């Protein structure tokens, strides 16, 4: 699998580290519940999603990347 780094171009996915952008749902209004959700729960989307990726073995910069998980 290849991933496109905006700085380095198309590289093997092994060079990158996957990062997640936590999305706490709006209906959780209690601050304690929001903290718990942010720490543990995951949206785990099946389909196109935007993620943060770190080019660990390249330019060592974070970038946003859209990927289809299905």
């Amino acid at each position, binding site marked *: 699998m290849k991933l496109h780094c905006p700085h380095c171009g198309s590289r093997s996915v092994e060079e990158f580290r*996957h990062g997640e952008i936590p999305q706490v*749902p709006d209906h959780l209004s209690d601050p304690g519940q929001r903290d718990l959700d942010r720490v*543990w*729960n995951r949206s*785990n989307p*099946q389909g196109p999603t935007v993620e943060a990726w770190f080019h660990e073995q390249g330019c060592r910069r974070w970038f946003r990347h859209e990927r289809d*998980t299905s």
Partner: protein
Amino acid sequence: MNEQVEEEITLRWGGEPRPSYDVVIIGGGGHGLATAYYLATRHGITNVAVVERNWIGSGNSGRNTTIIRSNYGIPASVRFYQRSVELYAGLEAETGRSVMHRRKGLLWIHHSETGIRAERARAHLNQAMGVETEFVGPEEIRAIVPEIDLSGGGRFPVMGASHHLPAATARHDRVVWAFAEGAAARGVDILQHTTVTGIRTAGRSGPGAGSGQGRVTGVDTDRGFIAAGTVVSATAGHTTTITDMVGLRMPIRTHQLQALVTNQYRQTFHPIVFSAELAFYVSQTARGQMLMGAEWERQPSYSYRSGSEFLRSCTAKAITLLPFLGDLRVLRQWTGVCDISPDSSPIMGFTPVDGFLVTTGWGTWGFKGIPAGGEALAELIATGRTPALIAPFGLDRFARDRILSDAGSAGTQ
């Protein structure tokens, strides 16, 4: 495979769902079917349906590497998996079906001083809890596996291992069929090719429904509504697809795990061999093929596609530890999608939605937990109380700050 299963085992296939059941279990894999089996055999609860989107055992239950063991690093896990090891050992006698259970022993090898120290501690914990795990040195390892390169290709010297004697393998789809047949014979409906499209609840309040209150009343499927007093999700990598239907947020991410088999190795390779630092394990199937794996993909995915990266890294590790594997050929590789929990421990039991239960977080370690997980969940459903064996594994452990971190015992990285 489905046609063959239909011919060979005695199930009532293709029946119409009843309008209502006491218990509907979503997911016809090992955990779902074992729960149904133990509900029927231990508790006489047979007004039960197992609803499966494809055919039984078509998910991770038919894709795993079939290893059964209990050499964990925390007491709650040792206790739980040891119960599973015992139930597996008696499964053929109990069900009257061959599941090709073989006790093989497992060598859990380390290549570093720090690894050795952790492994000694784990062997001591196992022994203290009555589990046969012995620490062995390089020469003893060579006696058990003459094929091993103790220098690890010069880069991964074998420094010691724990020898976990009760470790075993069983034929995975036969385990699924044994539980399915036993459950069906007692009146459980197994509804294949039936997809759950929604879960209905009653008594929820306002727009805050997503906070997960209310009580479950049944499931919508592509074959109509089925009412149920209790609904269980046993859907592995697709857990959050189901829990999203009741607005329940879960500490689960879906990751791919790959495995491969080679062609036949003509000699007997008895033990299961695992390397902690290499993140690699191998065992021999009943057909003589060498079965290996151990690395899950870091980025979440629901895709069943296999990749060349795994093929390259796994075979390189294989040859480092066991050079004879280089003379074999890769026959096939495949992928399963796993429900990985944050602490590498399963999540079983009640949820904030009344009557809705989960058995999930089985990640890359679910096969070995099938009988004990099914037995405990059946007891929970029948009695309404969480059995002591699985009390530490509740979904509420995250909010209570009682997580069960044991990634080092998961056998995968």
